[in-house]
């Protein structure tokens, strides 16, 4: 095998580069809010990480330059609505970095995916701003206004497709009566998919988790739809709506919190995919990536222990 990386920072940088297509697609759909949230999240992430390292009397530069805090910030910013007020992202990133990472001992020691921990915290604590999405492209002035002036502009807001479907189904409608297609969401998912393929080609992530995760979603969604096509979304919608591709290639693959054995990665990814569909179909929240990730994070040491590869001569 060829050696590809010189350092952990390089891995993190590559992951950030791979996000560019997905970010571009999000920008095209949601507008400037996406970019503002990312900048805000990154600034907060670096500040919090640096201050916490200072409190812990640890060298600041190596940990900041490893890029992990920046990545956490970007992933969280991509998960929250682009028109959420500024304090949402500030609170979320703080929670992610402090409670998700530093309190466990910093990079490499955290059992839970920090970005998803931050997201779950926000979603439970502030459900309204966390589910109010931009319904159309938002320009720079509008975005600054809505994010910093705390003026929820009703005209801008809407629900995501998964949100919408969830509400409509709860109101007793049938899947066949609904518009379950969203070209914008599809493009965003394709953007992240392409970025993920780049990471696979560079061997920065391994194929096991994304493939198993998407298979988990596909198989469980297929079975549900085959059983009751009026109450459950078809497989292709599950794959192309919400944060599916972001989750498959950028969140589920976080090496620190994922299973690390080859067989374990398959189990971890597959069960996570199944959980996503279960939460989307039966849970109270429209999308289930964050909860699925956190639930599976808890099982990692168990999975790793029982899926050790066969050692030479044993």
């Amino acid at each position: 095998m060829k050696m590809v990386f010189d350092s952990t920072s390089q891995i993190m940088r590559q992951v950030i580069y791979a996000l560019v297509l997905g970010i571009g697609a999000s920008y095209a759909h949601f507008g400037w809010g996406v970019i503002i949230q990312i900048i805000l999240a990154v600034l907060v992430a670096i500040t919090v990480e640096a201050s916490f390292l200072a409190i812990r009397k640890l060298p600041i530069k190596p940990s900041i330059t490893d890029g992990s805090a920046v990545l956490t910030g970007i992933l969280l910013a991509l998960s929250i609505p682009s028109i959420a007020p500024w304090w949402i992202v500030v609170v979320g990133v703080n929670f992610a970095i402090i409670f998700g990472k530093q309190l466990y001992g910093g990079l490499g020691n955290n059992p839970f995916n920090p970005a998803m921990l931050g997201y779950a915290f926000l979603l439970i604590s502030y459900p309204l701003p966390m589910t109010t999405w931009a319904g159309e492209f938002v320009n720079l002035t509008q975005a600054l206004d809505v994010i910093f002036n705390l003026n929820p502009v009703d005209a801008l807001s809407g629900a995501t497709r998964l949100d919408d479907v969830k509400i409509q189904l709860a109101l007793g409608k049938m899947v066949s009566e609904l518009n379950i297609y969203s070209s914008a969401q599809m493009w965003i998912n394709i953007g992240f998919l392409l970025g993920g393929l780049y990471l696979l080609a560079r061997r920065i992530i391994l194929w096991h988790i994304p493939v198993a995760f998407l298979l988990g979603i596909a198989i469980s969604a297929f079975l549900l739809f085959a059983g009751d096509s009026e109450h459950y979304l078809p497989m292709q919608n599950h794959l192309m709506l919400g944060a599916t591709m972001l989750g498959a290639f950028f969140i589920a693959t976080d090496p620190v919190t994922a299973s690390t054995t080859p067989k374990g990665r398959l189990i971890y990814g597959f069960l996570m995919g199944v959980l996503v569909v279960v939460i989307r179909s039966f849970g109270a929240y429209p999308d289930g990536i964050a909860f699925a990730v956190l639930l599976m994070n808890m099982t990692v040491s168990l999975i790793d222990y029982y899926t050790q590869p066969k050692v030479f001569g044993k």
Partner: protein
Amino acid sequence: MASYSFKGGIYLPNPYPVKDSEVRQVAPPKRVILPLKQRFEDEAQPYVKIGEKVLTGQIIAKTISKHSSYLHASISGVISAIKKYPIPHPSGIEVMCIVIDSDGKDEWIEIQRYNQDFQHYSPEKLIQRIREAGIVGMGGAGFPTHAKINNAQGAHTLIINATECEPGIMCDDALMQHYPREIIRGVEVLLHACGAKQAVIAIEDDKQEALHSLLMYNFNDHIDIVQIPTKYTSGAEKILIKTLFDIEISSGKFASDYGVLCQNVGTVKAIYDAIIDNKPLISRIVTITGSAVQEPRNYEARIGTSFASLVAKSYPNPAPHQIRIGGMMMGIDVANMHYAVYKTTNCMFVNNVVPTPAVQSCIRCGQCNQVCPINLLPQQLFWYAKSKNTNRALDYNLGDCIECRCCDVVCPSHIPLTQYFSFAKALHRKRTIEQQKIDTARERFEFKEFRVKRNKKERAEMMARKKAQLKQEMAQDASKKTKIAQAIARVKNKRDSKDENGV
């Protein structure tokens, strides 16, 4: 041709290839330092005294232990000291050495020529002669060769390890190019000595010259020469056997348990010298390489020659050096060049001092478990080694780590993983010994408690029994009481009557 490969391992380029394949003969040095043991074996006993004159090839230390080898004077001269010198070992351990000061003549002992072909000797006799020639595994382990052949009696296959083990070391490559006839003949001797039917010489595919030299001299149907990929850890014995024959030697077992004997190609040449030329092991080929020497080269030097003199011949730059004895992967960093060429030292790296990259946190990326030839999970082992949880690390098969350092090389966080693993292994050994001591002490204490209690109880029981017995006896002998009473009454009566009479 079958393609041979194995799981894991890494392709590492040779950082400083030797430009010419020449083996430079080094004149006998003014002084040699000869250790009485290589590594873990028993020490041999000096057979000479300080001040004694010795000839080249003369036995200077003998042994009766099975796991030890003879030692011969590698130059002629006078024994000037028998004292401890450090051997290349991470702990800087010191070993008893014999020092010879040269008389400048390199006078040899008289060498007896054997008139008979080696085929006429019994395997036992050959093994005996290998033992008396002081031959040990020259690939680096230093295990006495006669003991290894003895353990593998009845083997069906002989493997000659000509893989060079690690990039950078080139002494075996040079040896094969220079002594192909001797090596093939040496393999024939070994086949006879161990009784195997076939021999396989495994050579890495980047050594085409050496391969062709061997092919030119191999007319023996029982000897195969096969090429294997130049992938690091291919030279590790168990991995090599797996690569060649798809035999996976169980953890804790040895090649000899599977009817396979593995010998380094340098050892084979030494066996040739011992059996055919009847010369003991007094020299070997070493590679001097590294970023700080202008010309990496192979030298054939007497055992005990100082490394400094060899390095001086390779035009080192004057800057401070980082010195490593053995390969760049599994070698040992040493503080200076005050070491001598031993039977097992195949290489010295003289590198410019470069700053080591900063260690970052483990992000469990799994690069390491993809290159582990043993299929371990170094990322998990690291976690438990760091937290000194040796039991958990052992659950993850810490004991099977061969410390090849493949994981260190690919780790993007530059964690010295192997160091953690050897530390954890040492810690486990220490804890086991301590636990045994604690167990013994506890058992002793518990037994004492038990004994005291038991004695007390037994004593109490005995007393009770005796008392009861006594009581019973008393009860039984009620008649005695009456007899005594009668006697007392009699005496009283007598006295009374006496008194009456007397009054």
